[in-house]
């Protein structure tokens, strides 16, 4: 139903609104189809929870402004990832300048957050625990490695796609990913060790 409407040919009688109407449907479609991953990756790339709304809005504002740029590209998703990456990075830089404690606080908090997981069904608990672990691990990475790790391991982009998104050479992407993975394994090791101490 919706699809059919979206594809309805442009009616010139709409005059001025015509071009916008097309654009409108395209943008609304993009929003509906990709909001989830935009939101998700904005979080994963390190947008503080409190600023998420603003950052995601900004991402879509940029996407809206640049939609002409998009034409001819093969993947909306990669294009959007690029915008997400840039907006989040700009946001974090600004944050680091104005409120360094937010970003640094992230890093310091690291694995201490894992400890108290509250109660609940076992599955829920472990899911939540896993989420906390991932969050604090990501916060412990520097922004470059974080981006590559998120895009590769969580978002399942390929290395060439990541290179395009972050604007870095392929080799750099591979090397950042390698390092991030090592850190990830180490973090898991530390987590296990702590777990073992807590539940003998």
């Amino acid at each position, binding site marked *: *139903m*919706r699809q059919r*409407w*979206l594809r*309805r040919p442009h*009616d010139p*009688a*709409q*005059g*001025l*609104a015509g071009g*916008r*109407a097309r*654009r*409108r*449907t*395209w*943008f*609304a479609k993009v*929003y*509906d189809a990709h*909001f*989830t991953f935009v*939101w*998700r*990756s904005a*979080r*994963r790339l390190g947008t503080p929870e409190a600023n*998420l*709304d603003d950052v*995601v*809005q900004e991402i*879509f*504002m940029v996407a*809206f402004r640049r939609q002409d740029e998009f034409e001819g590209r093969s993947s909306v998703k990669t294009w959007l990832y690029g915008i997400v990456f840039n907006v989040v990075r700009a946001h974090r830089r600004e944050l680091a300048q104005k409120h360094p404690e937010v970003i640094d606080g992230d890093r310091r908090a690291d694995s201490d957050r894992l400890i108290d997981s509250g109660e609940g069904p076992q599955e829920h608990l*472990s*899911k*939540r*625990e*896993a*989420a906390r*672990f*991932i*969050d604090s691990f990501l916060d412990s990475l520097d922004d470059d490695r974080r981006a590559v790790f998120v895009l*590769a*391991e*969580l978002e*399942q982009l*390929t*290395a060439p796609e990541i290179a395009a998104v972050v604007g870095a050479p392929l080799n750099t992407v591979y090397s950042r*990913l390698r390092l991030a*993975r090592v850190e*990830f*394994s180490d973090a*898991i090791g530390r987590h*296990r060790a702590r777990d073992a101490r807590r539940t003998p």
Partner: protein
Amino acid sequence: MSDLDEAGRTLIALADDAHDPTDIDRARVRAALARRLGAAAGLGFGTVAGVGATAKAAVGAGGVASAGGAGAAVAGGALTAKLVGVALVVTTAVGFGAGVKFARRSPDAPAAAKSSEVHAHRKVAAAPVVAAPPAAPVAVALEPPAPLAPAPVREQSTIEEVSPAKPIVRPAVRHEARRNEAPPIEAPPAPTTPPPAIETPAPIEAGDVTGAVARRPSAPPTAAGDPACAPAPASQSGVAGEARLVTEGVRALRSGRSACALSLLDTHARAFPEGVLAEERDAERALALAALGRTAEARIAAAAFLRRYPASLLGARLHRLADAAR
């Protein structure tokens, strides 16, 4: 290209949806974007059906901070979205007509307005969104609300049906064209109880009104306010009531019942000064004023709108409005 050990993969799989947005997040951001981008974003055309229910569930579960607000925002998302679609159509039609009208028509303000220019100016600056005057003559709605508006209000669940601009645009344009040749107030006025004083917070500061706007006297609020056109704002609270007022207002405006439209939009302004649909209301209100020939007020309202929502694409027509009569 994942190359992690099993523990790592398990962890990631477990946390897979941990960062996903809720439906509430989706709708809230959507509403915010629709406001910022105006109709051009077309965010009115998504499917937000069922989100309200989800919001309620989440609220019930205590899953959301400021639960009431979130619920409202969600519903607002859907409704704003719908409204924006309608608004674009109306804005297109009315905006053009109004722009032309403005270039030609001098404000049909009573002479008294000129003598009290400063006073009027201050008054408007303090509450530019507002115009419902005491002792306003009233336009009686002669037409039933439905016939000219095939879809905009009816469906609550399938928004797609709401917005096909095509069927709506043509009658609207035709009607506007007709209306430009005719006196702006289409319904016979009748006295009625004055609407209550307006509490809309001033969107702009007094000093904010530009000289260009201030130079011309603003017509004192004259028309609008009809029981039929102004359903009790309390009959539906929250976003539903809000949306109904604005939707009906837009519909009235599109069908040529400008005074009725203004009355509805003013009712909205009183009941929901900072409502989810405040942006749409303010835009339509300026257009309604223009349609009524209350050019000076329309210009001030348009200017206030543009200051308040500089990024809104609803503003395109209002620019014309604000500039035309200078």
